[in-house]
């Protein structure tokens, strides 16, 4: 968005690019896209292209990848990692790291499993149990964040200690019992419930309307000021794109079946979209989010501007703890239990890799919540597709690692190109 209302001679500055005044209408969309491409301002384009390539590749080679049922499975498999990756975005935006989230997810799952245990003294409603579990994880995150913010111990060390401690707690709790079965239906719904066909359509309509309503609200609130507004064509394309994705998702989900039972739009996916919108709003449209970016960009400048840097750090680690706890619950719901093998696979590393593949910088101040979503979907699709091809776990790790390396290398080149073109 450009307000080219202040133009004047500046002998020392680089000469203004000739295409600074972008034409309006459809030509403007092309001009901006071309400008962005040349200057390395690619945004989420490479990862979306990568996703399309992966889907086409597996669709052509694996017999049971490109099916409606596998799509619903994929959503349910990916939801937990995505939830953790959302929290990772905020931590990385500060330029910090949280290594404890894998086992914090385990703590979330463990707390929820203990609280729903039928016949035990603490037995309670599943929804209440989930709220308490997420609160416990947020509190743990806040505690770790306090040590980082107030004592000044590096986050790597504090959360590495957390990694060991919470792993130990889980081991102690589950060593004798082995596995706790989750029977509460509300908890299990988080990774198994599917909406009815009608419910799916209604959700698709609501999601499709959110973006245009937000943009219209912004236009109305900017009336009377000379603020450059988004090109109408770009606006129409985005609105249409979101609606297309929403409705195709519902159509596919409504076709998904296990034997004769229809699966429908998975609740786990709706939870992810809900938190995606909520956390994007938090990051981009609130003072808190602005301060997170500021602290990540230049903590000293933020401090001098009157921002309480420790407060921001503690809150971000609370978010990280809460999303880890919720992600853990979703993982437990996937297998209806918590076992000694929790968290599954490389949960911690997959979550961090998702955010990084999505373009979130490890050095703070750069990245977006949507990056975590796209990165997690790419990794999830890749691993799901390789599984359906019966590729060994070893190769799955190797290929995931190569994709991570490729994505970050591409991003580094793009950033260098941006720096050179002065944008």
């Amino acid at each position, binding site marked *: *968005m*450009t*307000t*080219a*209302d*202040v*133009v*004047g*001679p*500046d*002998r*020392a*500055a*680089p000469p*203004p690019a000739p295409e*600074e005044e972008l034409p309006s209408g459809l030509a403007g969309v092309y001009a901006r896209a071309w400008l962005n491409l040349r200057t390395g301002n690619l945004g989420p384009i490479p990862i979306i292209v990568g996703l399309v390539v992966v889907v086409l590749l597996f669709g052509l080679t694996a017999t049971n990848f490109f099916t409606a049922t596998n799509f619903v499975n994929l959503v349910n498999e990916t939801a937990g990692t995505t939830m953790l990756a959302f929290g990772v975005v905020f931590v990385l935006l500060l330029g910090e790291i949280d290594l404890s989230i894998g086992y914090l997810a385990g703590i979330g799952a463990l707390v929820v499993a203990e609280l729903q245990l039928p016949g035990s003294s603490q037995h309670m409603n599943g929804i209440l149990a989930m709220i308490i579990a997420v609160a416990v994880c947020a509190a743990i995150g806040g505690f770790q964040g306090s040590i980082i913010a107030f004592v000044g111990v590096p986050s790597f060390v504090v959360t590495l200690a957390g990694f060991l401690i919470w792993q130990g707690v889980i081991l102690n709790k589950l060593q004798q019992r082995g596995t706790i079965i989750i029977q509460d239906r509300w908890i299990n719904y988080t990774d198994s419930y599917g909406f009815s066909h009608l419910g799916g359509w209604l959700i698709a309509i609501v999601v499709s309307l959110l973006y245009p309503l937000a943009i219209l609200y*912004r236009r109305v*609130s*900017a009336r009377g*000021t*000379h*603020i*450059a507004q988004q090109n109408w064509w770009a606006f129409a394309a985005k609105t249409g794109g979101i609606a297309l994705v929403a409705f195709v998702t519902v159509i596919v989900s409504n076709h998904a079946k296990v034997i004769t039972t229809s699966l429908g739009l998975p609740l786990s996916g709706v939870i992810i979209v809900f938190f995606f919108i909520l956390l994007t709003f938090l990051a981009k*449209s*609130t*003072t*808190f989010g*602005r*301060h997170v*970016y*500021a602290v*990540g*960009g*230049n903590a*000293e*400048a*933020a401090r*001098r*501007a*009157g*921002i309480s840097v420790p407060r921001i750090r503690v809150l971000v680690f609370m978010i990280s703890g809460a999303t880890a706890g919720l992600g853990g619950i979703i993982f437990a719901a996937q297998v209806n239990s918590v076992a000694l093998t929790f968290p599954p696979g490389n949960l911690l590393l997959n979550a961090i890799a998702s955010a990084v593949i999505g373009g979130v910088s490890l050095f703070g*101040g*750069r990245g977006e919540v949507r990056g975590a979503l796209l990165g997690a979907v790419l990794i999830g699709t890749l691993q799901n597709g390789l599984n359906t091809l019966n590729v060994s776990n070893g190769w799955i790790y190797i290929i995931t690692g190569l994709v991570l390396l490729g994505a970050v290398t591409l991003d580094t080149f793009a950033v260098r190109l941006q*720096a050179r073109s*002065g*944008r």
Partner: protein
Amino acid sequence: MSDTALLQLRHITKSFGSVQALTDVDFEVNAGEVMALVGDNGAGKSTLVKCIAGTHSADSGQILFEGREVHINGPKDAARLGIEVVYQDLALCDNLDVVQNMYLGREANRFQILNEATMEHHTAETLKSLAVTTIRSVRQTVATLSGGQRQSVAVARAVMWNSKLVILDEPTAALGVAQTEQVLALVRRLGEQGLAVILISHNLHDVFETADRITVLRLGRDIGVYERRQTSQQQVVEAITAGVPTKVAGIPTTAGVEQ
């Protein structure tokens, strides 16, 4: 000393342990005036400014703001009075755009939800009022701006909050010739708009381009105040390197250089 001074410091003394940083310093600046503060390294310029900005508090002495005695115990007190400091490192967030930096820590919001339209509008207005015309878009990230533009953003941020006194710490230290000219023009404009400006600089060329008066510090004492029009660079250089405070000699004049 005139009675109309916006800010007056009287007999300011400050020491750090056994190091006497400021000894019985008097200083003043009027509204609409650019007052340069010059002196060699370790002369006490930074300490004096930090006493005004609230980073340090003076051991003894008086601070008068708009004729009333004030106690500045922190940067927030200074900001409340309308005193803003632009430090040498500018304290900008490179990853944020111009608007976001201008409103850093004071974002326009309703229930913690940002009001981008208001912020963008006022940023553009402020830059226009200061004739900062080289910034193409207020939605550019600060990382893409030239040194002079960054300085302009930092100054504009200090001015935007109805400030009465702006303190600039070496604003041209890292700039090329053309950009230095831009920033100096901006400094003069601040004075013309009725703000009091304290300009700390090593560069006497800059000082003589912009300042109305010049205060010289040497070894923690004020050597004197010079009217720029009635002073040569040579006189100021002598004061910086060999000046003796006239007060000690018991001759309270506005300027004094002892050979």
